[in-house]
Structures are given as structure tokens and as C-alpha cells.
């Protein structure tokens, strides 16, 4: 036995093993942690568990540098004890058994309390401004060129006697960008019904297809033109990403639409669609929340709704006070984030001063990782 290793480990390991029910989880998990003195080099660690039946089970064999382990092979509300062994060459030194611990599921994830607070503040802001709008007060909304162009784009299609192609993105109905796109589709469909233009809506997702068809149908009914609604113009193409892109490209090349709308979730096919559309000479209005696809749309389209403008579009087009009120709430939410980012930067700088280290605790509250 290496005498120094034995002395160090037998002296330091037993008091340093700690066990606890893993916090903020669904149960069936115990967190074991330990500390080894820095002077000791251990080749491997062996973790053992003893249950209520006093049977010992080897839980894990770990590298000597590990300082903890999460045991997810336990039963809730059963008592367990743990011990860890340090292995160096042929020598093995066991720590004492830990205190008794048992796992249980939690009803609230305290690590997410900051998200809850932020969410409640933001909800309060949005609801406050919605009530504000309900009271009939004027709310200023800045001009969005891409949305101002919708009327012009639909009018152009009518004048040219060519159709409008509306691509509601490739996302599923669970994507918020798709929901936003379907909201805009309703407004665009109302205008196409009023102007008597043809509206073609190729879909990649079957659920989006069924919703899009209902949205367009309702819009035509609201515009007083239910007879002009053609269900065949809203159709499902395929769920395959590039097959869908090929089909929409083919549609644009054959039909030579006057206007193309690309609004929703897009991936690598964004440029394939937008460039093909540009070659057909159509006015193109695009919008997505994907920062990776935005440059492609900005390059290849006439107007691009950048990020949040996509979500603001239905409020902007419909001018409904309730929707405009929520837009105002969003703006104040952004202002709040700017203030927090600024304060966070100041706190981070201050926390680097040794005497003001407690500021790091305040900073931790904003950690959502």
C-alpha cells in the first residue's frame, strides 16, 4: 500500500462524500458528490450503493478526476447509502458510508423560477396594453415596408391577371412562425378575394394544409366572396424538404406568378425558392424568424420581414386594437430586456472586484442554462 496515498485518502475522503435527492427532477435520481485532496492522484473511482436490503451494488466505475455522479437507477422513497473507493495501482481505499438518502419527484422546478418571473412580467405588460387598446387609446406602430407592399402586390397580380403564390413555410403547425404565417395568410386571402386574384398555397405539412384551407375559406367568406374560393388552390405537396422546394419552383416557373409570399419557417431551401421566384420576375415578400435564412431572403426578395416583424404582421395588416396593444407590450418587453442586459453588464463588471463578489449571486438569478 502506498502509505502517503492511504493516509491522504483515508483522512480526507470520508468527510467529503455527500448525497442528496437530485433537485428539480421527476424523481428516481440521487446525486452523489465527493472531493479528493488536490495532492492525490487517483487512477479510478468505484461508487457503491447499499439499499434497504443491505445488499451492496457497484453503481459505476469512473475516472479518477470525477467529482460526482448522478445515480438514475433508484426507486423513489427507498433509503440508500453510498460509498466511494479510490483506486491507485493495486491499492483500493473505501470512504465511509454516506448518510441515508432517498429520491422523490418534485412539484416545482426552482431552477426555472427566473423564467416564470420574466414570463409573468411580460404577460402583465401585454395584457396591460391590450386593455389600454380596448379603452380606445391611440397606439403608434412604426411603418413596415414589407407589409405596406402587400396591398400593392395583390393589386399587381390582379392587373396582370396572374396568380399569387403563398408559401406558409416548411414548419409544422407547432411552430409559432407557422401560426404567424397562417394569420397573415388570412389577411392576404381577404385582399385576394376583394381583388379577385388567384391564390395558390402549396403546403408541406398535412396539418398546416388543413388549417390553411380553412383560413382561406373563412377569409373569402368574410370578404363576401365565398363563391370565389377554390379549394383546389390550397394543396398538399409532400413532406420531403427538397421535393417540396422542387415542386414550388416548378409551380413558379410554370404559372409565372405576379407575387410570391414566403412567410414562416424555412431552412436550406429558402434561397432555392427565393432565387427561382426572382427569375420569374415576381414581387417577392418574405419573412422568417430564422436568422440563418434571413440574409438569403434579404438578398433575393423585394421585401423581407425580419424576425419579430413576422409576428407583428397580422396586427399591422388587420389594425385590430387588441392585436396592436399586444405589439406595444412586446416593445416594452424589449425595452425591459435592454435595461436588464445593461444592468447585467454593469453587475458582471462590478462582481470582478473582489470586495463586490456578492454581485455574482444577483447575476445567477438571470442564468437560464
Amino acid at each position: 500500500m502506498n502509505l502517503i496515498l492511504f493516509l491522504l485518502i483515508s483522512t480526507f475522503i470520508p468527510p467529503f462524500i455527500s448525497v442528496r435527492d437530485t433537485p428539480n427532477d421527476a424523481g428516481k435520481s440521487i446525486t452523489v458528490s465527493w472531493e479528493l485532496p488536490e495532492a492525490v492522484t487517483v487512477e479510478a473511482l468505484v461508487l457503491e450503493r447499499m439499499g434497504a436490503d443491505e445488499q451492496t451494488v457497484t453503481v459505476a466505475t469512473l475516472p479518477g478526476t470525477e467529482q460526482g455522479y448522478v445515480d438514475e437507477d433508484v426507486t423513489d422513497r427507498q433509503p440508500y447509502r453510498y460509498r466511494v473507493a479510490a483506486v491507485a495501482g493495486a491499492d483500493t481505499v473505501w470512504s465511509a458510508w454516506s448518510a441515508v438518502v432517498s429520491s422523490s419527484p418534485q412539484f416545482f422546478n426552482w431552477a426555472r423560477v427566473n423564467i416564470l418571473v420574466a414570463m409573468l412580467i411580460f404577460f402583465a405588460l401585454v395584457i396591460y396594453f391590450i386593455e389600454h387598446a380596448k379603452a380606445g387609446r391611440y397606439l403608434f406602430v412604426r411603418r413596415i415596408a414589407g407589409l405596406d407592399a402587400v396591398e400593392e402586390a395583390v393589386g399587381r397580380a390582379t392587373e396582370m391577371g396572374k396568380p399569387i403564390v403563398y408559401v406558409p413555410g416548411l414548419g409544422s403547425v407547432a411552430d409559432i412562425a407557422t401560426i404567424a404565417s397562417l394569420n397573415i395568410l388570412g389577411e392576404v386571402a381577404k385582399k385576394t378575394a376583394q381583388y379577385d386574384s388567384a391564390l395558390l398555397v402549396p403546403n408541406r405539412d398535412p396539418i398546416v394544409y388543413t388549417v390553411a384551407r380553412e383560413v382561406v375559406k373563412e377569409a373569402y367568406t368574410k370578404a363576401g366572396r365565398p363563391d370565389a374560393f377554390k379549394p383546389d388552390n390550397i394543396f398538399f405537396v409532400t413532406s420531403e424538404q427538397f421535393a417540396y422546394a422542387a415542386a414550388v419552383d416548378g409551380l413558379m416557373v410554370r404559372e409565372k406568378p405576379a407575387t410570391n409570399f414566403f412567410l414562416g419557417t424555412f431552412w436550406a431551401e429558402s434561397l432555392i425558392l427565393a432565387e427561382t421566384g426572382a427569375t420569374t420576375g415576381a414581387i417577392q415578400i418574405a419573412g422568417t424568424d430564422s436568422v440563418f435564412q434571413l440574409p438569403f431572403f434579404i438578398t433575393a426578395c423585394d421585401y423581407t420581414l425580419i424576425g419579430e416583424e413576422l409576428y407583428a404582421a397580422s396586427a399591422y395588416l388587420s389594425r385590430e386594437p387588441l392585436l396592436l396593444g399586444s405589439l406595444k407590450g412586446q416593445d416594452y418587453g424589449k425595452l425591459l430586456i435592454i435595461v436588464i442586459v445593461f444592468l447585467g453588464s454593469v453587475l458582471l463588471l462590478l462582481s470582478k472586484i473582489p470586495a463586490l463578489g456578492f454581485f455574482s449571486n444577483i447575476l445567477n438569478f438571470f442564468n437560464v442554462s
Partner: protein
Amino acid sequence: MRRSLPLAICLGMGILMMIQFFVPHPVSVAFYDLTTKWIRIVSAFALVLGVGSLILYHTDRLRRQRPGWAYSIVTLVALVVTAVIGLAWGVKPGSPLQEVLFKNMLVPLNASMFAILAFYMASAAYRAFRARTKEAALLLIAAFVVMLGMVPVGESLWHKLPEVAEWVLSVPNMAAKRAILFGVALGAIATSLKVILGIERGWLGGGKG
């Protein structure tokens, strides 16, 4: 009733899913799993409607002999052949569906479409980099520096160029990206709230309940 029932379901499920995010208890996890299973089941039913739409759309094109109607024959034949092979031999690895249709047809076709992107990128870059305005000139300079800094010849021209390229990407570019993401996140939350509360009804065709 036609509107109020979906709105009530939306409100109930929206609130439950929000609560679910903060509750790690197994009951909450089981509820989430059940919901995702339901989404899959609903998707399967919607797929039937989707395939129905596909058949109707292409048979209509064939009947009316619209431009490019011959492609509709290809689509319908592909649909039937894929379905028959899948039903007869299954969809497991090694089946004709996987080996012939997927590996030897669908994958190369997808790869071809993806490859076209390179040419579109070149044409889009040409258009974007024409320095007609101050903004376009700035974009051109930034892109030139970043591209040059990312290749070995850039470093041999000036040893600081990779650092400058990295700075452009990680400071001004990242700042703009994060600003967009903040707006997107808030927009997404506000849209969700409006949908849950029934203020935004565009997905139902709009209007009052």
C-alpha cells in the same frame, strides 16, 4: 360552438402546457408524453387528408390538361408504386422501399436539389455585393474580409486577417443576431399568449367567437 370549442381547448391546453414546463413531477411528464402522442395521431389523420388533396390536385391537372400535366402522371405513379412497395415488403432496413426507392432514388434527388444551392448562392452573392448603396458597400467589404480571413491565403496576406474576420463574426454579427433573436423570442411568446387567450384568431379564419 364551432369557434368556442376550439378556443376553449386551446386555452385549456395552453395553460396546462405552460404549467407543465415548470412541473418536473412524473404526472406532468406523462401528460407531456400523452400530448405528443396525440399530436402524432392527429398528424397521421391529417396525412390522409394531405394525400387526398395530392390525388385530387393532380387528377384535376390531368383532366384539364394544364401546363406540365405529364409531371402529374409521374407524381401519381410514384405515389402508388411507393405505397404498394411499402405495404407489400414493409419499411424496415433492407426492404426494397429503403434500398431502391430511398437510397437510390430519393437521396440522390435530394442531394441534387441541395447541390443547386451552390449556384443560387453565387448568383445571390453577385446581386448582394453590387456596391450600389453605402449599406451594400459595407456588406461587400465585411464579406470580403470574412471570406479572406477564413482561407489560408488570407493569413499569408496579413497575419491579423483571421483575427479581424473572427471579430466581425463574433462581435457586430453576433450582436445583430442576438438582437433579432430577442425580438423573435418576445414575438413568439406574445403570439402564443394571443392565441391561447383567443385574441389572435387568424388560425381559425379570424373574427369574433
